[in-house]
C-alpha cells in the first residue's frame, strides 16, 4: 500500500504529570477511514489533540506524508492538511451558519474554491443551506454536528480527524452522520481518522480499526477482522459469549492483557 499518509510513532502526551497516551503508533493510508475505539478515558481525544497540534507530545512523531508536524501550533497543522472536528461540535454559536463555514476555510485564500466548497457542503447537508443565515447556536445538536463536519471540510483537509461524531445524537442521526462520512470518503476522497465509542457503527464504516485502552493501542486490524474478533464482540459490541453450559463466563480475560 506504500507510504501511509499519516504515520504516528511512539506518541506520548501528558496532562501535567499524568501520562494520557503511552507510546501510541498507528498508520492511516490515503483514502481510508480508520477508527480508534476505546472506552472513556482511554486517551482517544488526547491522541486526536496531539495529532492536530492542540497539544504538544512529550515524545514521538506525527508524520504527514513523511513530514513531521507534531509540537507546532494548530494553524500549522491545518495549513498542512490535518483538520480536527472536535468532540462536542464546538461551533461558533453567535455567528451565522455560513460564517461558521467560512471560518473553516480560514487558512485558505482562493475565494472561488471556498465558494465552491460551501456549495459542496450544502449539497451534502441541505439543511445547512436552509439555515445558512441563522445563528449556529440555534441549530439542533445533529445540525450542529453536520455544521462541524462541514466546517472541517472547508479546510480541504488531507486527513480529517473526527472526534466522537455520534456524541449526544440519537441512533438514527448517528447512522445518518456515518452514512455521510462514508459518502464523503468515497466521493470526495477525504481520508479520515474517526474516534468512536460506538464501536458497531464505526467498524461498519471503517476500513481499518485500532483499539485503545489506558493510553495504549492494544489491537489493530482490518475492520472486518475486528468485527469478527471475540474480544471486540464481547467488550465493544456488547454480545455476550455464552459458555457450553449456557452461562455467562465471568472470568473472561481480554487476550491483550
Amino acid at each position, binding site marked *: 500500500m506504500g507510504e501511509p499518509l499519516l504515520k504516528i510513532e511512539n506518541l506520548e502526551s501528558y496532562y501535567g504529570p499524568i501520562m494520557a497516551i503511552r507510546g501510541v503508533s498507528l498508520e492511516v493510508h490515503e483514502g481510508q477511514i480508520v477508527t480508534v475505539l476505546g472506552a472513556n478515558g482511554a486517551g482517544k481525544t488526547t491522541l486526536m489533540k496531539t495529532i492536530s497540534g492542540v497539544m504538544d507530545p512529550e515524545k514521538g512523531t506525527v508524520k504527514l506524508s513523511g513530514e513531521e508536524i507534531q509540537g507546532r501550533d494548530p494553524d500549522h497543522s491545518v495549513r498542512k492538511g490535518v483538520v480536527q472536528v472536535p468532540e*462536542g461540535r464546538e461551533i*461558533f*454559536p453567535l*455567528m451565522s451558519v455560513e460564517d461558521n463555514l467560512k*471560518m473553516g476555510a*480560514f487558512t485558505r485564500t482562493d475565494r472561488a474554491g471556498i465558494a465552491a466548497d460551501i456549495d459542496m457542503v450544502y449539497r451534502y447537508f441541505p439543511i445547512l443551506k436552509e439555515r445558512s443565515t441563522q445563528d449556529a447556536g440555534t441549530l439542533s445538536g445533529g445540525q450542529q454536528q453536520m455544521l462541524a463536519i462541514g466546517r472541517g471540510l472547508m479546510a480541504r483537509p488531507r486527513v480529517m480527524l473526527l472526534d466522537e461524531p455520534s456524541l449526544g445524537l440519537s441512533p438514527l442521526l448517528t447512522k445518518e452522520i456515518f452514512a455521510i462520512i462514508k459518502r464523503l470518503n468515497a466521493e470526495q476522497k477525504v481520508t479520515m481518522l474517526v474516534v468512536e465509542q460506538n464501536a458497531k457503527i464505526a467498524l461498519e464504516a471503517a476500513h481499518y480499526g485500532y483499539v485503545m485502552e489506558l493510553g495504549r493501542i492494544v489491537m489493530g486490524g482490518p475492520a472486518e477482522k475486528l468485527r469478527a474478533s471475540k474480544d471486540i464482540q464481547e467488550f465493544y459490541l456488547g454480545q455476550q459469549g455464552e459458555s457450553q453450559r449456557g452461562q455467562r463466563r465471568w472470568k473472561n480475560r481480554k487476550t491483550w492483557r
Partner: protein
Amino acid sequence: MDLLQLLISGLANGCVYGLIALGFVLIYKATEAVNFAQGDFMMLGAFLTLTFANSNELGLPFWLACILAVLVMGVVGYLVEALLIRRMFGESQIAIVILTISLGIVLRFVAGVIWGHEPQSLESPLAGREVRLGGLVLGFDDMTIIIVTILLTAGLYLFFAKTKIGLAMQAASQNQLAAYYMGIPVKRVHALVWALAGGVAAIAGILFAAKGTIDPSTGLLGIKASAAAIIGGFGSLPGALLGGLIIGLVEPLSSRYVAAGVSQIMPYLILLIVLIVRPHGLLSQVRAKKV
C-alpha cells in the same frame, strides 16, 4: 433650546465615554481580559497627538498627527498583549486585572514625566469654531465627535461582519478552542484586538482633547467608561456605546436640573440601578451553551 444645547454637548461627551468603553468591551469579548489601562491608553493617544501636532512640538499637520497617534497606539496595544498579557496565560482573571491597573498607573506617571502634570491643550482646527442654527450654537468639536463616532461605529461593524480577520476575532471570542481547531492563529488575533482597542482609545483621546485640556490623570476617565461598559452589558459593543451615551447625557442634565455635585455620582448611581434591575446589562448577549 437650552435643553437641546445641553443634550448635544452631553451626546458628544457620551461618545467619548462610549469609545473608551468600546475598547474595554473589544478586549473583554475577544480575550476575556479586562484592560483597566484603557483610559490611560486614551490619555496617551491624546498626548501623542499633541506632541505630533502642536506648533511648539513637532508641528505636523493635524490630520497626519491623528493618523500617527492612532497607529502608534495600535502598536502599543499590540505590544502590551504580546509582551505582557500573553505571559499571563493560565493565570487567574484577577492577576490580569491587577496587571492592567498597574500598567495604567505606570503609564500615568510616565506621561507625567514626559509631558508634565499641568493641563495642556491640543491645537485643534476644531476648537472655538461653531455654527449657529436658529438659537442653537453647535460647536465644531461636538459635531465632529458625534460624526466620527458614528463613522467609527459603522466601520467597526463592517470590519467585524465582513472582513476575514474581523470574523476570526468574533470566532476566537465565541469559542477559542474551536478557533484553534480551524487554524486561526488565536494569539495573533488577540494581539490584533489589543491593537484595535489601542487605536480606538487614541481616537477617543483625540476627540476628548479637541474639547478641552488634557493632563496625565485624564486617564482616570476610564473608570467612568468602565461604568458605561457595564451599564451596556459588558461584552456588547452597541451596549458600550449606549452606556457611554447614557452617562454623557445624564451628567449635564443632572448638574443642570438637580445639583452641581450630583453629576459626579450619577454614572455610578445608574450603574447600581442597572446592576440591580438587569444584572447582565442593558444589551447583554448571554446565551447558555447547548450541550
